[in-house]
């Protein structure tokens, strides 16, 4: 399984805080394409979104990052703390 987290306005847009999915995706990109098949707002928020931020196991990652079972994958907007 992989563990997926959503933060800030992505969390609100998608109405989802976290979920677990089978570990069947090779990369973050594969996972995103799969999630986008849920239709809107998933497609817009995750695929058609050039400012989407990605972390894999607490490190900043990209669409090309490889993922495997047990990984924690997070999606969020650009950060605004401080």
């Amino acid at each position, binding site marked *: 399984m992989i563990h997926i987290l959503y933060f*800030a306005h992505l969390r609100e847009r998608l109405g989802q805080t976290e979920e677990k999915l089978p570990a069947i995706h090779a990369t973050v990109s594969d996972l995103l394409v799969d999630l986008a098949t849920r239709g809107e707002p998933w497609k817009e928020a995750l695929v058609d979104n050039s400012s989407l931020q990605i972390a894999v196991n607490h490190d900043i990652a990209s669409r090309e990052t490889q993922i495997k079972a047990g990984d924690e994958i997070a999606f969020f907007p650009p950060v605004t*703390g401080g």
Partner: protein
Amino acid sequence: MKPSFPFINIQKEDFDLTSEIATLRQGYKNIGAVVSFVGTVRDMNEGENVSILELEHYPGMTEKALEKIRLEAHQRWKLEASLIIHRIGQFSPSDQIVLVAVASQHRENAFYATHFIMDYLKTNAPFWKKETLPGGRTRWVDSRVSDKEAEQRWAT
């Protein structure tokens, strides 16, 4: 529970500048300079009044991201000690949000390091701000181009 990163604190509680700096300096007799930055809630943003500011973060990643920034500062400049406190939860105008404090023998290093840590924190630490505006409307704060530019000035 002992925190894994003793110089990083993510907390709901407020902090006291004097006692945090005292803790930071404890045991060092060769410190000549302590620079600190305190970020506070403004009552206006983008031309609108802000009554409540909410701060969300990504537990686990936040601590790791802040510690990475802190250690990077120690690699770039000769520093004696540093700490980062970032609050989460709900805030009102003029509440304290964040403290970065750096102690060094000579002032220049502490100035640069504190500024660097804040600029990197702004663009690399997973925190998000949500504002409550007049009438109860809420909005997520947009990231600023100026923050990205500020970070890029430190590129090696």
